[in-house]
């Protein structure tokens, strides 16, 4: 995964990650909530509040854009819930600045019960699902992964591009299908394109 992250860095280096000071409205509150987000005991509640604030206050969203990538890049540690909540924030608030950090963990299996439909909808891969929510800004990174990642990373990138389904996403899949070495993934991409 580390090697992949280095490779895709070229694709995402153009995304500006500017550090921005909060506006006058919610400065201290967002800082406090971000701290609480990283505690297992208070993470869920802080997440809900940050979702509300980030949806209504551009300054809060920009604050998260400058601070969430550092949390996401570390990956899930002993207590996974705070990290999963950070992934959720990045996706639901469509924070494009989080794409490199999320892409690093696209091969992560977040476990649980499974069916092929749940796999295809990325229910067992939170980082990839967040990239789908971010949408077109994530396509260059996903394109790099589907072309150069491990088998599981390529599957998850293909699922993500299939779910984004914008013309740009479909174009990436069409370009890749003939080069895909795994027969089952190649067939999946081909059937997905045909089933548009």
């Amino acid at each position, binding site marked *: 995964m580390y090697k992949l992250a280095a490779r895709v860095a070229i694709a995402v280096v153009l995304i500006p990650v500017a550090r921005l000071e909060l506006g006058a409205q919610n400065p201290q509150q967002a800082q406090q909530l971000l701290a609480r987000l990283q505690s297992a005991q208070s993470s869920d509640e802080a997440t809900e509040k940050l979702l509300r604030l980030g949806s209504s206050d551009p300054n809060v969203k920009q604050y998260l854009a400058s601070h969430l990538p550092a949390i996401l890049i570390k990956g899930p540690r002993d207590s996974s819930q705070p990290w999963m909540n950070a992934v959720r924030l990045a996706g639901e608030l469509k924070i494009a600045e989080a794409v490199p950090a999320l892409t690093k963990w696209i091969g992560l299996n977040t476990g*649980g*019960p499974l069916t*092929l*439909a749940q*796999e295809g909808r990325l229910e067992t891969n939170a980082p990839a699902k967040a990239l789908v929510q971010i949408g077109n800004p994530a396509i260059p990174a996903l394109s790099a992964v589907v072309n150069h990642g491990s088998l599981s990373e390529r*599957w998850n990138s293909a699922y993500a591009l299939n779910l984004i389904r914008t013309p740009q996403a479909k174009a990436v899949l069409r370009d890749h299908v003939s080069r895909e070495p795994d027969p089952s993934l190649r*067939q999946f991409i081909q059937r997905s394109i045909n089933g548009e």
Partner: protein
Amino acid sequence: MLAPFRFEVARAFRLVIFALTTLASTNAPAQESNARQKQLHSQPPVDAVDQEQFVAYWTLEGGWGSELQLRNNMVAADLIITPALRSPDGAETALSPVTVHPQEIKIIDLESAVLATAPRYLGTYGSVVLRYHSPANRNLFAMLMIHDRGHSIAFHIDATGEDENTAPAGREGIWWLPNETATDQLVVTNQSAHPVQADLSFYDSAGREAKQTLTLQPRGTARLSARELIRANGLSGAFGGLRIFAPSHGGSLDSVHLLYDETASFSAFLKMFDHGANTTLEERDFAHTKTWTLRAPMLALSQPDPALAFPEGTTLQPQLFVRNTMGKTVDISLRFNWRGVSAIGKTAGPSLRLGPFETQRIDVAALQASNSLPKDAAWTSVTLTTNSRPEEVVALAVSYDKTLRYGAQTPFSDQLAFEWVGSLWEYDVQHNSLITAGNGGTKPVRAGFTIYYNGGTQKYELEQALQPDEQMWIDVGKLIREQVPDKNGKLLPQDLTSGSYALRDLSDKFIGSLYEGKVVYDKTFGHVTYGCAGCCAYSTTQLHFSPLGIPLLSTADNGVDAYDTCSSWWEPVDESFYGNWTTGSTAIATVSYYGTHTGQAVGATTSYTSGYLLHPTPRTCSNVLRSPQGSDNVVSATITVHFTGSKTVGTPGDGLTFPSNSTCSQNLGLFNCTGPGAWVWNVEIQANVSDDASKWTTRQSYTGRSKGNWKDSSGVLHAFDDPLNVPNDNPLSGFVQQTSGTTVIFWIDAPGHYYNYGTSGPIDSLTQVQNFTSTVCSTVNPNICSSKAWYLKLVVKPGAVLDATNSAAAFGTASTNF
């Protein structure tokens, strides 16, 4: 219809316009429930087309004024109406368009409108055409009030459509000259663009005829004096018959007959009736009694209701005039349903035999004097039955005092309906409105009465059960004054002065059994006037589903929708079509009394049914047999699931490939896949359909439970127990094969569990049940779906050892009690 109306002089000077605001079996295809289907079916919108209605008479001659009332019957769209005035010679001038909101009434004072656009029409008279663009002619209910401003005399004239049938037809009436000074105006209008020639006949009470020819210009109006013509032709007496008959284009004729006496402060409207040559009893026998019946709902009796506010001691002389319009003898029976202050009752009236063209007078006051009717009864409805065909007998009901100064009228009509939309009601210091709805059928009904106000945006609703012949009486002023709550506890505003109303038969919305009546009384002039409501009817019928998809050896329901020409809404009218369903081929599909179809063999056929509905004609609503039909497709779909062995081979074979990141074999069955780190069971779902694989969609869902222990980095076990509920587990197109031209659908799945419990840690032990429902639904027949239930039970023993013995996948559902 027309009615005399007294008007306050001051009220005549209104502004130009103002708003009065007023298959879910385990294997066989199954059908959604009947109730569900009724929610799902939808009919296409009906296109708007150019519509016309006509008012037979307007006048702006010296002292007279005319006022249009326009009501939009639609529930969800504005109506833009352009009135145009026609002069006696047929010349036409359009007035400004008027926008009327749903359920709203707008009033146009023609004098003000003419002053603004066509002042040359001042001092003249003619007819009115109302043009609008809407789905149905009855989206508009319109009427015109004519008032003699200096003498507070007024008449109410309803707008009608034009019957463009060129068949012979005519108008029938009764002339009445109660004194030597009353003036009468017989107004005859040609609604069409063709000249119309008609025979105008007067009859004395014994049936002697005097006939002359009448020629009407295209769109023209003729105004005659019946009194002068009767006397000039040597007829005598105080009453008799009147006929206007056109050998062709008879449906284009309309007429009104007005009677007034400025000196006596008297006015009466002598209602005229359409008489078509081909009207059948079936069309007009709404109550299915095999007898043609006319009703007059509100005849004021000798001792008037105090609510009418006539001077103390006023005694009325209620009387009926009944005329035979044919050259043969007819028998007539009368009955009365009377209402007093504290009692109601029924009384049989006299039976009459009328000779050819004869008119007879029935003295209702004498019936009261002889105690045939109670002396203290204030009102009665009059029911007239006859052995004649429809429209061959006409009748008038009048009730005035000796001076003709005080009195009231009530019109005869044979019309019963499931819905009536009413015009203006009024209530203020000088006015009040009494409205009635009667049950003209043979079974009890529930009647609904709705008052619309504040521009049609607010409503007040009452309901009442009515036995046959029983009437509900609504005193609008009392509802407002005494703050009577409606069925929802709502009160009418105490400052409310006008609005519109509607009546509905809540027990039968196909034909209906309600007749209606309304009187508005004016304390200033001591006069009571009646107004009429318009009947609502259905113009078009469609089956709920066409084509109807019917699962093989299973059932699918169908029914009938009808287009309500007042509201412009589709209404389900299934019950009227029960018992008349058939199919073209019973080898393919059979159908029950209620329209439930059963698929007998794969194929296509046609369904037929019929039933009676109220149908709109230009001037009435008729009882008409409707016969909708639609296509049926019997299809089959069968789902199975393969749990072990190889994927299906053959033609077509299953060409799908299990994904390498989730599972580790292309075979079916249970696998411990170390690569992806998951325990999975590869399955193949197969649906065989009768038509084409590409015409179906695939769906899947599951519920269940996942319970066990996960181990942290220190080796400590942590229990978990999670419910599973995934309503959308629909297969991705990348895992589905449904090739056009084939009849087999495949999709693959690999349910199971990853080695990890989320990101928390590895699973140590696990028992998990996933109960699946796999479904295919037809896109051609959206009500056809076929489903199959199956399950996976996955057991992992402590130490993360897959328990192949106790793990299972099979049809049906597995228990989650573990």
